[in-house]
């Protein structure tokens, strides 16, 4: 057994995965190797890229047993591509495939059948939800699932840790030579930030679209020089699941209260100065923080240099009102954001490597001042779980959580202190995605805790009237109401490995009993 830098125990070796490298500290790994390069191709003037079917593309790419295929998750709960392609692979009788999408959602429940029939034997993803997540937590896979952050996945691909044989990338608009983008067509999704990495590093790239547009389709997120084949299908996704309508501000009093405290923390932190940068999640409290920050910006005449990450309509509004100068967008979360990226030159599409890969020459999160993040569980070491529920079952995504926490100057977790009858702050979280040493402040509806490492922030915030406690005090406050929760019972089988963004292992997730 290994014990990593945050005291989690890991096996030294896992069958089908290999030796594990234990997490030490956020920036302790110095990479030694060179960037991975995809295979060279030859496309002659006579060659046509448009193929009749996904099956034909699979055959032409030479997909064989044991290979790795990848996808992006820009279509979220509306995605048809993963199920469509894996169905075709199964029909062709190809087995033991590693499924390596940027993330998986509830809509991918049909993958369970393909695990059972041997088509899929390994999975590498950022997130897992719904029936597939339940099945994996209950031990359906022989080999553990590899959980990576968005920056960590880009790193793994660029470093050659995750070698993609064929990338199947759904694109909302594409010409017949493979220039594609995400901001037009009936299935538009905005940014193609995750897909861009796969397109550049996969040995073979197949674009799947429901919207062929005249050549040349520029500006293109994915370039013709990276694309082998194109397949036109009836529909690549369900627009209702791809982009939600405008994300709306919450009316939930608890979320508003958390947002009020978080905004005060930001105002008093010293980071809210002209030219600052920030990233907010899509949760109710996060968005309410964004609104409150906007009021302060107007009041004080402050402007932000850029906003980063998953972009929502709220940030597009700030851009259009001139309160934010640029948007860096890896993933457009709603209709407004998806439309804006194609029309506003100051709304810039970035790929996941630019966003958060710690092993390139400087990713965007390094320049982030403030990030607001959510949590399913937090422990008294400030470690955060966003992947498993209080029952130990997979139900979330690593996303950019640990990337932005490590990169930003001020990382704030917003969460209710108690969910239903379950406390959010524990002695030990069920799974660690983000190490506590990268979390600065935890804001709940019943008080705020500052990481003791941040003496500067403690000093600043204790001068305010904000309800500041130690994290242990917050935990006790919750337990006075709920009692101490019983720990989840697991057996020895490891169902998922949580990789930190630098490629080390920060935790393993076991099968629930």
């Amino acid at each position, binding site marked *: 057994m290994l014990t990593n830098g945050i005291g989690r125990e890991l096996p030294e070796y896992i069958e089908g995965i290999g030796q594990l490298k234990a997490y030490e500290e956020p920036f302790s790994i110095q990479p030694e190797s060179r960037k991975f390069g995809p295979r060279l191709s030859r496309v002659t003037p006579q060659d046509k890229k448009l193929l009749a079917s996904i099956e034909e593309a699979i055959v032409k790419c030479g997909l064989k047993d044991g290979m790795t295929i990848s996808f992006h998750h820009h279509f979220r709960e509306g995605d048809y591509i993963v199920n469509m392609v894996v169905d075709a692979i199964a029909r062709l009788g190809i087995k033991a495939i590693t499924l390596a999408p940027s993330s998986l959602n509830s809509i991918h429940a049909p993958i369970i059948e393909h695990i059972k029939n041997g088509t899929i034997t390994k999975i590498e993803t950022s997130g897992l939800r719904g029936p597939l997540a339940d099945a994996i937590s209950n031990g359906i896979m022989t080999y553990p699932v590899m959980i990576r952050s968005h920056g960590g996945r880009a790193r793994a691909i660029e470093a050659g840790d995750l070698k993609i044989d064929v990338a199947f990338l759904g694109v909302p608009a594409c010409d017949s030579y493979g220039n594609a983008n995400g901001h037009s067509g009936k299935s538009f999704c905005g940014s193609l930030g995750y897909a861009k990495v796969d397109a550049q590093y996969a040995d073979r790239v197949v674009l799947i679209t429901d919207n062929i547009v005249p050549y040349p389709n520029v500006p293109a997120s994915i370039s013709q020089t990276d694309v082998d084949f194109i397949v036109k299908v009836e529909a690549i996704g369900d627009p209702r699941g791809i982009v939600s309508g405008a994300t709306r501000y919450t009316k939930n009093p608890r979320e*508003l209260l958390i947002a009020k405290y978080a905004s*005060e923390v930001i105002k008093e932190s010293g980071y809210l100065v002209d030219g600052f940068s920030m990233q907010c999640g899509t949760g109710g409290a996060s968005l309410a923080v964004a609104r409150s920050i906007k009021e302060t910006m107007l009041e004080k005449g402050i402007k932000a240099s850029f906003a980063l990450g998953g972009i929502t309509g709220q940030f597009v509004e700030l851009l259009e009102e001139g309160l934010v100068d640029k948007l860096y967008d890896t993933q457009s979360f709603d209709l407004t954001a998806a439309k804006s990226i194609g029309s506003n030159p100051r709304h810039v599409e970035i790929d996941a490597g630019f966003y958060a890969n710690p092993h390139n020459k400087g990713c965007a999160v390094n320049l982030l001042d403030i990030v607001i993040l959510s949590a399913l569980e937090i422990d008294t070491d400030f470690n955060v779980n966003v992947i498993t529920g209080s029952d130990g079952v997979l139900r979330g995504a690593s996303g950019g959580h640990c990337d932005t926490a490590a990169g930003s100057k001020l990382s704030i977790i917003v969460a209710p202190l108690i969910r239903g009858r379950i406390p959010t702050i524990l002695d030990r979280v069920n799974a660690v995605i983000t190490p506590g040493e990268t979390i600065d402040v935890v804001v709940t509806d019943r008080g705020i805790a500052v990481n003791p490492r941040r003496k500067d922030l403690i000093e600043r915030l204790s001068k305010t009237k904000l309800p500041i406690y130690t994290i242990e005090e917050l935990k006790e406050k919750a337990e006075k109401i709920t009692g101490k929760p019983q720990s989840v019972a697991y057996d020895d089988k490891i169902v998922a490995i949580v990789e930190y963004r630098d490629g080390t292992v920060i935790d393993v997730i076991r099968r629930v009993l």
Partner: protein
Amino acid sequence: MFKLRRTMMYVPGNNPSMVKDAHIFGADTVMFDLEDSVALNEKDAARLLVYNALKRLDYEGTEIAVRINGLDTPYGREDLEAIVRVRPHIIRLPKAETSKDVRDIEAIIEEIEAKEGIPVGSIQLMAAVESARGVLNAREIAAASKRLVGIAIGAEDFVTDMQTTRSLDGMELLAARSQVLLAARNAGIYALDTVFSDVNNEEGFINEVKHIKQLGFDGKSVINPRQIDVVHRIYTPTPQEIHRSERILKASEEAARKGSGVVSLDGKMVDKPIIERAQRVLSLATAAGTYELEGGEAIAY
């Protein structure tokens, strides 16, 4: 320092999630309701929940009131039997019609206090008038007991009794609100205004709060935490008011130190009501976080 009662937040007594941390939103008083917001088949569940919550949970100093069912219902007596034993700061009786309603409740509370060894008189009372008869008797009701700290108007039942409906400008309530205020001031107790039910009409709510503040009410009942900050903002004094009040109090302290009975400021005499008003202004400002009383306790956001 004045006890502030700018907001009294209704919390249905049968909702565990809301009961467990109703105080975190910052209302001056939290009122657990056993009456109109609780369905008949949940009366005992609500009573038990509020009883246990008050017994076990720490409301961190927030003033707690419990609205019981009337003694003319099968639940009022049982509510008192349970709730008095866990000693909320205030018991609020609904639909008071006469001063006897107050005295009847008081007698039962006293009986239970005595039986349980609770200092007699420690639980305070608040009465709500919600009918034409109640409003007309407000003067006697407000003066009916030493335990009474406030009188409230309940508008929904009142307008029905008056054969009208509520409007945004509150014309139909003007006479009743004024009557309740006069009764409160005559008895030296707090006057609390009724709820504003359309939580999403923020503008209408703001107008109503400004209106009742100008009439002289000490505060308003709220039904959603989102309404709390709105009321508190409106009840927060301006910097000019704060500055003037500070000077008045300073002058008054100076006079007291010199043993002078007459307080004067800028050549004008300052009499007792002005000093009281100044104290009230600074209390409101302190609670709003815009002013800190010297040596006073810090109040959370």
